[in-house]
Each structure stands twice: as structure tokens, then as C-alpha cells.
């Protein structure tokens, strides 16, 4: 406290002045706009150009969406209803949605692929998210058999016996693996084959148990076919890709050579030529009289294609592991199989996950190529039966837009998951 008399100074400020607001140009929206949109003249020009582009795009898109006709029997009706308002003829989607999604699948059986699709998420959950209880992995193991039964129908015994073969094989493997990995592996394979051979007779004898109406592979189409090809081929190509990657890293020259040739050959040719092979040429190379489903031949080819790419991703993961990990495994006295199974692969796979997801997204998109070999997937349905029909000839944007939208939703979802996972993995390492 000062002793200066109060009257000797005209005015004493006893409380601090409240801070003045920053100038209007330096706060709130205006500041944000100044900094982010018009910081330099060049920047301002770009902003204006962007706004024009956005306006132009929306001016096309919004009336098309808002004035769309959702209820009409043909493109001519659509045009009458719209009377030149420039809307889209979305009636084609409401009328043909079942063909776009399910292909020629029997109409009264749509619940089956739908259930299989919903269960797919349950089965994938423990694989995708570490927080989900591990016990669900059992369901993941059962899912392929369940899904096969649901989608293709037939007696449930087929998938059950197939599963039994794997179970027996696994038991034999776990008994024998203590002796050596090779013994366990071949023992397991042998046990599985014997089981399938025996149950083959059983299946013939017992006939139909809990049989669902059988659906021919040929009748499977639409977006469902894309999803089936995508999931089946990715899951099949993963183990194959691991084997190829290990083979390519192997010190045994012949094995390495075989893997290198396989991988480079597959990666060197476009998928479409492999599909031509599946469609046109493969039949020549199978025993006379045998006849594979086209869908099966395509699955084989796409799986080989994906496996080669996944092998390269995993090879990257293997190469990124510090040498010390290999040496540590050696110094523990682990043999090759143990070292790979317990030390190297778990880490290498973890590093490779983002790459594998990228391959998976690319593969899923590439399943549209089957439309070129006359399979009626989503794009095939659009280009074939729907656009060729008298009713809907000329409805391009609505159909292609719908197809693009479905693919975008799925692929964007997967890539967002992949980015999330990458962040998770990063925090782990820090």
C-alpha cells in the first residue's frame, strides 16, 4: 500500500483493464477464413475456384437427387413423371434392387445370404478388434462352414463333415507336432484326408439332413457375388501368401526359385488375363471329363493373384524385423517352424496388416472384372440384363452411381479401419 494521499493523483486504476477483444479480423470465423482461405492472393484465387467447382458439382447433383423418380415401371414412365425436371430415374433401383444385390438367387431364399452377411461381422469382430472376447474366435472358425451351408444350401452334413476333417487333422497335428513340425503337418493332412474319405461315404448314405434348397453357383450374382469373391479370396490367399513369402525368403534355392517365379509371374500379368485363363483355357488343363464351376475357377485364379501380392507385403514385414529377432529365436534353440510360428510371423504379420488391408481393398474392387467374363456381379448385372432390357435401356448414371456408392461405402469403411489400426499399432510401439 502506498501512503500517497488519494487526492494527489487524479485517477488511480485499481482493477486491471479487461483485455480488449482482438480486432474483428483476428478472431472467430473471420480469422479462420483469413488464415485458411485467403492468406495470399494465390490462395484466394484457389478458394474461389474451389467454390465454383463445388457449386457446379452440387448444381448438377442436388436436383438430380431431389427430383428423382423412385416409382415407375420403365424409363419411359420415368421421363413422363419427371417431365424434364432433370431428376434421376431411381425407379430402376427400386424395381431391380434384388438383381443388383442378389443376382439370380431364388427370391424366397434372400434371408440366407443376408444372415450369412450379418454373421460375417460377428465372425470378423475378434479378428479385427483386440477388445472382443477371444472365445468368439471359435465362431470365426465355424463361420466358413456355416456360410457355405447358408449360401449354397444342401445338406448340413457336407460342411459338418468338412469341419470334422479339419478338427481331426488339427488333433493329429497337435499330438504329433511335439516330435517335429513336418511330422505334425503331414500327419494332420493325412488324418484330415482319411476323415473326408470316410465321411464321404457317410454323406452319401445319410442323405439330406437339415437340407436347405440348393442354389447353383451360377445363380449367385449381384453385389453378393462381389462380397463372396472378396471375402473368400482374401481369406484363402492369406495362408498361401504367408507360405509364398516364407518360401521367397528361404535359404533353399529351389524352393526360393519356385516362389519367385510364381510371384513375379502373377504380379506381371493383369488380372483380366488370369480370368480369361479361368474362363477359357483352364478347362483344357484339367483331366478330361472333370468340370469345375466357373465361380470356383475364378476363386482359384483370384486367390493366386491376391496371394502373390500379399506375399510381397509380408516379405516386406519379414524384412523389416530387426535381425536380432531371428538371432534371438536361434539362440533359444528353436527350430525353423517354431521360430517362425512363435517369434517371427506374429511380429511380421502385425507390421504387414496395413499393407494386407490395402491389398484386400484392391482385390475387392478387382472382383468387378468378373463381369468381363460374363459373370453377373454388380457391374455385370448393370451392363447385362438391366441395361439390355427394353424397360431400362438408357439409365446409366443411376445404376453406375449406385454401384460406385456401394463399393465406396465398403472400401472406405475398410480403409478407415486400416488407418485406425495403424494408429493403434503405432501407440503400441512407442
Amino acid at each position, binding site marked *: 500500500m502506498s501512503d500517497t494521499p488519494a487526492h494527489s493523483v487524479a485517477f488511480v486504476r485499481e482493477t486491471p483493464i479487461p483485455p480488449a477483444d482482438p480486432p474483428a479480423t483476428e478472431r472467430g470465423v473471420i480469422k479462420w477464413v483469413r488464415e485458411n482461405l485467403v492468406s495470399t492472393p494465390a490462395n484466394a484465387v484457389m478458394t474461389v475456384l474451389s467454390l465454383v467447382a463445388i457449386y457446379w458439382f452440387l448444381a448438377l447433383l442436388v436436383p438430380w437427387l431431389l427430383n428423382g423418380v423412385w416409382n415407375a415401371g420403365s424409363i419411359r414412365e420415368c421421363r413422363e413423371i419427371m417431365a424434364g425436371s432433370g431428376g434421376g430415374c431411381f425407379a430402376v433401383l427400386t424395381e431391380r434392387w434384388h438383381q443388383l444385390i442378389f443376382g439370380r438367387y431364388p427370391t424366397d431364399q434372400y434371408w440366407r445370404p443376408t444372415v450369412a452377411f450379418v454373421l460375417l461381422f460377428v465372425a470378423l469382430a475378434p479378428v479385427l478388434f483386440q477388445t472382443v472376447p477371444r472365445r468368439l474366435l471359435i465362431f470365426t472358425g465355424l463361420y466358413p462352414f456355416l456360410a457355405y451351408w447358408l449360401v449354397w444350401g444342401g445338406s448340413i452334413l457336407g460342411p459338418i463333415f468338412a469341419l470334422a476333417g479339419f478338427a481331426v487333422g488339427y488333433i493329429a497335428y497337435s499330438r504329433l507336432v511335439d516330435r517335429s513340425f513336418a511330422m505334425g503337418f503331414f500327419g494332420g493332412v493325412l488324418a484330415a484326408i482319411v476323415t473326408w474319405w470316410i465321411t464321404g461315404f457317410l454323406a452319401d448314405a445319410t442323405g439330406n439332413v437339415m437340407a436347405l434348397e440348393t442354389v447353383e453357383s451360377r445363380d449367385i450374382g449381384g453385389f453378393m457375388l462381389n462380397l463372396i469373391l472378396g471375402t473368400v479370396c482374401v481369406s484363402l490367399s492369406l495362408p498361401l501368401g504367408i507360405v509364398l513369402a516364407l518360401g521367397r525368403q528361404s535359404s533353399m534355392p529351389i*524352393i526360393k526359385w519356385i516362389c519367385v517365379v510364381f510371384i513375379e509371374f502373377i504380379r506381371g500379368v493383369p488380372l483380366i488375363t488370369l480370368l480369361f485363363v479361368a474362363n477359357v483355357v483352364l478347362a483344357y488343363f484339367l483331366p478330361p471329363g472333370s468340370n469345375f464351376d466357373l465361380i470356383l475357377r475364378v476363386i482359384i485364379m483370384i486367390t493366386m493373384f491376391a496371394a502373390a501380392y500379399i506375399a510381397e507385403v509380408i516379405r516386406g514385414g519379414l524384412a523389416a524385423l530387426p535381425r536380432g529377432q531371428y538371432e534371438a529365436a536361434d539362440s533359444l534353440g528353436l527350430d525353423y517352424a517354431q521360430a517362425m510360428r512363435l517369434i517371427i510371423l506374429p511380429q511380421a504379420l502385425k507390421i504387414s496388416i496395413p499393407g494386407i488391408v490395402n491389398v484386400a481393398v484392391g482385390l475387392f474392387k478387382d472382383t468387378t472384372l468378373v463381369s468381363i467374363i460374363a459373370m453377373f456381379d454388380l457391374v455385370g448385372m448393370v451392363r447385362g440384363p438391366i441395361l439390355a432390357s427394353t424397360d431400362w435401356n438408357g439409365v446409366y448414371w443411376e445404376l453406375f452411381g449406385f454401384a460406385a456408392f456401394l463399393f465406396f461405402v465398403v472400401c472406405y469403411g475398410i480403409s478407415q479401419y486400416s488407418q485406425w489400426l495403424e494408429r493403434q499399432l503405432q501407440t503400441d510401439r512407442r
Partner: protein
Amino acid sequence: MTVMTDPPRESFRLSMLLNDTRYRSYTFQFIALIALFLFIGWLISNAAQNLEDLGQDISYGFLGESAGYDINQRPIEYNSQDSHLRASIVGVLNTLIVAFLGCITATVLGVVAGVLRLSNNWIVAKLMAVYVEAFRNVPVLIWILIIFSIMTVSLPGPRAFRGEDPSSSMLFDAFAFTNRGVYAPKPIWESGSMIVVITFLLSILAIFAYRAYAKKLLYDTGRLLPTFWPSIAIFFVPTILMFFILGRPISLEYPELRGFNFQGGMQIRGSLIALWFALAIYTGAFIAENVRAGIMAISKGQTEAAASLGLRPNRIMNLVILPQALRVIIPPLISQYLNLTKNSSLAIAVGYMDITGTLGGITLNQTGRAIEAILLLMLFYLTISLSISAIMNVYNNSVKLKER
């Protein structure tokens, strides 16, 4: 001092082939080799059996036969009486044309989008993010079909240019954008035009020489020569001078509407444009991501270090950031080029006559020689891929960080 004696040498026993790690790998390889040969042998014997049953054989004689069909885009002379082999070569050249154009456009688009996505202009960055995500997440086949539909449905047909009061008109009387493609003036090379072209090529060489000299001067003496304006001058002045000195030996042939179509000039067909653009925009989205990743991979410290050395911003970019970023960007860039080339086989969806459309399309249909045609098709793509990979390996080795 003790002398180490070798352990007693074991004599080789048969069981060691399975149990001894020294020999086991031979066993495995032997088994794998036998299995491979058996598998290949099985395939070949099946094929032989099947072909015999059908009374067919494997023969490449069809390549010499007359093809019988016409191709619209012919980089080399071709008519329907030429052989299937020549038709295939036309296809190969068409593939290379679309791949080359696509790669260049994709690179430009990708670099621009990648850099703009890191721009501090919020709206531009977001717009680029939308572009990248929209194109990366939708199959390229759908994009090709969409762009092809845009081309055919939105652009006017040549008929719209006709009549007293045409609904469309040519740009500068030189360019016509129709749904059959874009028509542009074509240069006519008269005598003496070679000299102009050579002058032009020489002046490009001169630009490089001048820049190398400027750089050397900078490193030797520290003197900074201007490069931008002299380069521009060297680029234009000699060629234009030569052009006029020789009495304008190069003239332009303008397209004009005659009969059903525009005649004269240069036509870039709709199928080529659709394929080219679709591939470029699609691949550009991937390249944008690579470029962004490459730039972000360079730590901020590099920029700051360069700034503290007193370098100006554009020199920081040219001398410090780009050389490092390029090492990250180029390998994935080249594999994107490879993908683009392979994706160009989707030409078949829009009727562009590339190798898949000629050899793998009409030739295969007309001759029924499926095995032979597809084998040749695969060999062609394999050759391209392997050569690009080889170039990539050479490059990778040359830019590898020399760690000492």
C-alpha cells in the same frame, strides 16, 4: 595350448536326410521339385489328352493368316487383309500409347493433388481429400464405364455442328469436341520442317547444358546465374527464328465437317479419351497419396535446418526436401505406372483396340486359338512388367542411401 580336434566324422546314414538339418533341406527341395514336375506334367498330359480328344493342336500358324477385321486407331499401316500378327502389333502399340499418356497425366494430377492436399487452404485440401478418397475406393472399371458414358452422352455428336445455326461450334475453329472424340489440327510437315524440329531438339539440349553450366558455376565460384528466363528464351527463340527463316515449313491442317464426320486434322477417339482419363484420374488418386506420404516423411527438422543455413524457400524445396522425398515417392510411383499399364487391359470394356482387344479379343474369337492367344497376351504383359521392374531396381540401387 590344447589342440582342438575335429569331432569324429559321422558316416552318412539315410535317416540323416530327414533328421539332420544339414541334409534335410536337400530332401525338402528334392520333394518340392518332384512335386512341381509331377504337377506340370499332369497339366500338360491333361492338355494333350483334351486337345487330342477334340482333334485340335497347338499352333501359331494363325498369326500369319489374314485377320479380316479393321481397327480404327492405327499407329502403323494396317488393313483388314493384313495378318493377325500385324493386328496384334497394332494392339501392342495402342496399349503403349494409352499407358504412356495415362502415366504422364496421372503423374501431373497426382503431384498436384498430393501437394494441394497438404496446402494450408482448408477448402482446397478438403476438396483434394474428397477426390482421392472417391477415386481410390471405387473400382476402376466403374470409373471407365462412367467416363465413357459421360463422353458419349454429354458431348454433342458431329450432327450438332451442322446446319445454318448449329447447336455446337468449334473452339477457335480448330478444336471440335464430339462424342466420337476430339478433333484437333494436325501439323503438315513440308520440306525443311526437319530442320525446325532438329533446332527445337537442340535448343532443349542447350537448356540442359546451360543449367548444368549455371550449377557448376554456382558450386565453383558461388555466382548465381539466372536460369528461368534464359531457359524460356532458349526454348522459344531459335525454333521460331528458324521457322520463319525457312519460310514456315510447318502448317496446320484443320478438321472440318464433311460427310458423316469431321475430316482432316487429328482425331483422338472417345474410347482412348475415356480410358486415358479414367486410368489417369484413378491412378492419380493413388499417386497423390504417395506424394503426400513422401513429403510428410521428410521431418520438419530438415526444413528448419535448411532455413537456418540461410536458404530461400524455393531452394529449400529444390535442394533439401525434394531430393529426399523423391526417394520415398519414386518406387511406389513406378509400381503405380505398372498398375496403370496392367489396368489398361480393361480397354475391352470401352472398345479401345489394345492388345487385349485385338489379340485377346477379336483374333481369339475368330480363330478360336484360346491357349495360344492368351499365352502370347500374358507374355507381352510380363515382358513390360519385368522391364519396368528392372528399371526400378536399377533406380533403387542408384538412390540407395550410401551409408558408410
